[in-house]
């Protein structure tokens, strides 16, 4: 039974990558290999960046005899990344899965359902944590050259910690589920908490170099402090660095915590999985209805879906929040950037000419974080019959999806471009052209997302997170958008040597407009037909 449930769990997790949702058939071998290679590449890319970070700490701490501190530090970072990387997946996968009630009605023990769901959570946490821990262990092996015994404890400690990640993720996921079951406007609360977390992450990220420099400069002192006031961290580091007694203490503590969490969760799983919002019931009072046209009504429907789902908002419109912040930072720090102009000029770079293409490339890079249309067709899911049986023109239905993207993306895109333009003081013509170019890029992203989702829809998801987070179209749009932004920057760097930046910007605008126009033409002709046959 567990085997069958595990098969279902992993089939659900991997379905997007191995099966064509439209035809129900397996993807081609080349398609599957392509997906696997893409993820291996992303994993390797992040792993390499963490290796350089870990290496810079290891080369100072390990020769100073602070291997335990190095391992305690990197282990802690991996646990934090593992927990926060998988906590929302845990919440959605454990407590929000659509088939919870179906499985609970079958002769399956709740603890078995929980075990199978936890396997998925464990794998997610392990992947996130490994992003830090594998490069950190490689750096440890290179700089320390540990004895076989110390090498064994470092690896075993990481395996033990992967269960600590699982335990902490479950506890946090349980807290999120419990709070969510009591909340009325949970989507906005979730978005607020997530943004606070993201803000915290960026603050740490931008101060990371300073933190590491500080840590390296005062490593011995820091080590003493950890030993004195954070003794469990010291035991963790000592255990990982080869002290078997310390390792055993860590192992036993994690094993007990994991067992306790499993026991408590299996007892409360039914209650949490079946608890509905206990928010106060709102009684309807008759009001005069507002009449809208079809286009506006369809737009409202898209907006209602978007604003009710934190997963949808956070995964496809983070740029909307980020762009104003970056814009304000650009206004405040703009003068600092202009002070570098003489340095660039001395290097032979005509900064006046290169700046407009650079600004356009930078804005495109951030604007790509919005891909609202990319999962919008998939999100119709079981509701598709409503639109398909109504007298709404398919083109209007698809247009509404693009209007939503544009309404949440274009204002911040304009704001960001204006802020950077003003901060860096470019001339009026290029000022206007960078704004038009950035807006046109948003239009292109919107059309591309919709077209890709029409080609690769996923309508039979069991929880919304699958449709949004495992959206292949969103992945292609984001990476394609980044590639396009980099291409604009690189092309601009060389182009301004043979043409004015104004001509280059005009070319960019024409290319974006032409591409968006062609994709929209395809949507009108083929896309509507595909939607009508879904």
């Amino acid at each position, binding site marked *: 039974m567990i085997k069958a449930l595990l098969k279902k769990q992993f089939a659900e997790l991997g379905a997007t990558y191995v099966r064509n949702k439209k035809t129900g058939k397996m993807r081609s071998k080349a398609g599957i290999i392509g997906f696997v290679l893409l993820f291996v590449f992303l994993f390797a890319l992040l792993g390499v960046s963490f290796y350089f970070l870990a290496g810079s700490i290891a080369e100072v701490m390990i020769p100073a005899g602070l291997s335990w501190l190095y391992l305690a530090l990197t282990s802690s970072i991996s646990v934090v990344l593992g927990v926060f990387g998988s906590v929302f997946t845990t919440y959605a996968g454990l407590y929000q899965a659509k088939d919870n009630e179906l499985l609970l009605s079958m002769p399956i023990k709740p603890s078995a359902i929980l075990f199978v769901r936890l396997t998925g959570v464990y794998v997610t946490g392990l992947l996130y944590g490994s992003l830090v821990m594998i490069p950190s262990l490689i750096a440890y092996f290179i700089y320390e050259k540990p004895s076989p015994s110390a090498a064994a404890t470092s690896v075993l400690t990481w395996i033990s910690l992967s269960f600590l990640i699982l335990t902490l993720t479950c506890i946090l996921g349980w807290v999120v589920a419990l709070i969510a079951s009591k909340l009325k406007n949970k989507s906005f609360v979730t978005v607020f908490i997530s943004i606070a977390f993201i803000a915290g992450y960026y603050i740490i990220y931008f101060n990371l170099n300073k933190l590491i420099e500080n840590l390296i400069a005062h490593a011995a002192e820091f080590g003493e402090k950890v030993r004195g006031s954070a003794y469990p961290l010291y035991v963790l580091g000592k255990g990982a660095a080869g002290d078997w007694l310390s390792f055993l203490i860590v192992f036993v503590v994690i094993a007990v915590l994991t067992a306790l969490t499993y026991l408590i969760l299996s007892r409360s799983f039914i209650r949490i999985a079946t608890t509905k919002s206990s928010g106060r019931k709102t009684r*309807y*009072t008759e009001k*005069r209805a507002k009449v809208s046209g079809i286009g506006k009504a369809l737009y409202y429907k898209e907006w209602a879906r978007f604003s009710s789902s934190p997963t949808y908002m956070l995964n496809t419109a983070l740029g909307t929040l980020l762009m104003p912040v970056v814009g304000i930072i650009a206004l405040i720090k703009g003068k600092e950037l202009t002070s570098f102009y003489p340095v660039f000029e001395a290097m032979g770079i005509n900064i006046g000419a290169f700046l407009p293409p650079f600004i356009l490339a930078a804005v495109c890079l951030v604007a790509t974080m919005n891909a609202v249309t990319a999962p919008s067709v998939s999100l119709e899911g079981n509701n598709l019959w409503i639109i398909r049986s109504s007298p709404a023109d398919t083109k209007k239905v698809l247009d509404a999806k693009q209007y939503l993207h544009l309404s949440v993306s274009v204002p911040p895109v304009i704001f960001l471009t204006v802020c950077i333009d003003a901060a860096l003081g470019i001339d009026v013509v290029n000022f206007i052209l960078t704004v038009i170019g950035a807006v046109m890029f948003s239009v292109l992203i919107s059309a591309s997302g919709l077209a890709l989702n029409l080609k690769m829809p996923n309508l039979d998801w069991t929880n919304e997170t699958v449709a949004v987070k495992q959206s292949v179209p969103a992945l292609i749009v984001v990476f394609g958008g980044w590639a396009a932004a980099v291409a604009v920057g690189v092309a601009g760097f060389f182009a301004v040597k043979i043409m004015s930046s104004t001509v280059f910007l005009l070319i960019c605008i024409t290319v974006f407009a032409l591409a968006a126009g062609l994709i929209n033409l395809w949507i009108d002709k083929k896309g509507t037909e595909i939607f009508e046959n879904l």
Partner: protein
Amino acid sequence: MLKIEHLTKKYGETKAVDDLSLHIAPGEIYGFIGHNGAGKTTTLKSVVGILKFDEGEITVDGVSVKENPVEAKKKIAYIPDNPDLYEFMTGIKYLNFIADIFGVGAEERQERIHKYADAFELTGDLAQHINAYSHGMKQKLAIISALIHEPKLLIMDEPFVGLDPKAAHTLKEIMREMCSEGRAIFFSTHVLEVAEKLCDKVAIIKDGKLLRSGTMEEVKGDNSLEGVFLDLEDEK
């Protein structure tokens, strides 16, 4: 009101509906019965324009579903077997959304929402999000939304599933009222007693093919509808 001529719908090589023809006149309640997988839902979905069909023609009040789907859909309302509604909306917002799509004016929609929500005892719950509704409440909301634009043709797939006895009785009254106004109803059901009592005409489908159709007397004669249905099911 509804003319289905030689309808054929294939899924791959399998014919889900095979050369089916039916005529439903204004004022008629037409029942559609058949075993699971017989092709009832496929036929209904083809009529309302959800599924594209391979051969044949469907016209609603003289408008071709194939050639002019938007105009045809304006005359139809559809209630599926499973009311998957927009759970992110409240009941009243969903009704207003449907009214907007069908171009129903403010006064008419208010009057109809009032009338049907009261009839189905759902008025007090209209401000609630649909995700808090039970299956029966969703079914009631789907029915109200289907009636909001006063369709000429009402298509329903198993409409009585999930309804409490009072709501089922209300729906039957509304169906009779619609027919007395010259509108038509085409619905599938497994409850043969309901079909026998409620329908003017009935059609029996098996493996995508129409086995028998006509007035209740023509189809069942002196037998019960259940008896006829079981006899036809046993035939090869």
